């Protein structure tokens, strides 16, 4: 390849094929046809198809029975995580996700409880509107709202809501240590458990 070539779309290792001008004279046309006829290109095609059939190298994924692995950053149905220490809802009701949501589908209902702390009464996501952009998970300061891996969801209604009860990790599942951490951007590292310390007041 010419190093001085300015077009950066053409890279090293490109193969250029020699395309001839189409035949215009009758005799050239005749030669072209006979060359193509007796070159046996059609049989090359037949051989390739037969070879592929005999190799039986099938690429089909039989979907409901087999599933392809999904990326750790895949943005499927949201989950609300619990604190590892106290099993409380991680969500502090700051409302950042509600604010940043470009589809306007998150609503948080909060109140000030008797310790004058914010308590999250309900957390709903309208999956009929949600575009799964991932901004809510990215903006969350507490890693409370994350994207799970449950991508097979179908709704009977256009407005398919999820409430706090649906999103929050069930307590028994949490106690069994089955709360799955989101592995994508902003998630805690795999050895995050080692760095968890009890708050000074506890000891």
């Amino acid at each position, binding site marked *: 390849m010419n190093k001085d070539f300015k077009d950066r779309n053409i890279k090293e290792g490109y193969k250029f094929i020699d395309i001839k001008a189409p035949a215009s004279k009758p005799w050239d046309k005749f030669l072209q046809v006979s060359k193509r006829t007796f070159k046996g290109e*059609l049989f090359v*095609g*037949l051989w*390739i*198809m*037969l070879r*592929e*059939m005999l190799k*039986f*190298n*099938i*690429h*089909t994924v*039989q979907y409901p029975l087999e599933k392809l692995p999904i990326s750790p950053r895949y943005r499927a149905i949201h989950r609300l995580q619990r604190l590892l220490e106290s099993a409380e809802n991680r969500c502090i009701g700051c409302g950042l996700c509600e604010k940043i949501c470009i589809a306007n589908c998150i609503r948080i209902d909060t109140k000030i409880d008797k310790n004058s702390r914010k308590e999250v009464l309900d957390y709903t996501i309208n999956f009929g509107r949600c575009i799964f952009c991932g901004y809510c998970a990215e903006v969350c300061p507490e890693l409370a709202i994350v994207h799970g891996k449950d991508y097979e969801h179908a709704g009977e209604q256009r407005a398919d809501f999820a409430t706090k009860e649906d999103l929050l990790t069930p307590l028994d599942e949490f106690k069994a240590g089955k709360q799955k951490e989101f592995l994508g951007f902003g998630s805690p590292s795999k050895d995050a458990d080692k760095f968890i310390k009890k708050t000074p007041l506890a000891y």
Partner: protein
Amino acid sequence: MSDTGYIIATLIKILVILIIFSAGAGFTTYVERKILAFMQRRLGPMNVGPYGVLQIIADGIKLFTKEDIIPQNAVRAIFIIAPVISATAAFTALSALPILPQFTIFGYTVHPIISDINVGILFIIGVMGAGMYGPLLAGMSSSSKWGLLGAARTVIQLLSFEVATGLSILAPLMIVGSLSLIDINNYQIGGFADWLIWKQPIAFIIFLISGYAETNRTPFDLMEHEAEIVSGYATEYSGMRWGLFFIGEYANMFTISFLVSLIFLGGFNPWGFIPGAIAILIKISFFIFAFLWVRAAWPHVRPDQLMWFCWKVLMPVAVINILITGIVLV
């Protein structure tokens, strides 16, 4: 044999052939989907029954229960009768076809041919040609531009390739000296070396190519090519009416496979140690497979290329072939 016995035997044969070839057409659709899938690194139908075998039944139920739509401006009577013409012609062509060698069952000798007429090949070619009225009337009566284009293509394609078919089999018929398929078959009774393909290789190739064109299969599937004219003559058809066209097409595939095997490849004569019935089934299966194989591998041609190919290549070559055969025979 008495007349009554003959009539009953013929009716039974008709019934058996109808059932076998309708079922065969259905099963071929399954085989076609599977083989095309394997060639394209897919699996094909897998969910209905083991390895999708019952897919044919599912398709049949779907075809029978689908809504039968007749377009508003269609010519109703012709629209209804057109698919029947197509299927009838395809199955009528099978009636002059010796399917297996004669065999004896319960002490009764069966000739597996409905009607052994002495112009069998002419009859088959003629009836298959008459089947052209199916797509033609369907396309013209359905008041759809795609249908009309499909009908026009049907006429140019089938009419042109009738010429190539007729001229190509003229040379082997000159050698055999008979139009009866039984005679043609018996001519090649001497085994592998007596097959007419060794004497008439060019006629074999031309007849095979014309067969692809007449059954409307892939390099020449112009009359219902989806990418260009939606579905051609069958655009406005749904349900079982469309299914009749489909069965007709597959029955024609069987007819062409039988004709090629009978005329050029020794028919149902024993092939070495293989008995005749098995030999012809092997040949038929190969040609049906070749139909599907070609469909997976080759693109289709343009209508003008098709006409060019038929009138400027196949027909002159066939005529020259006849001339040479005549000179050699004389």
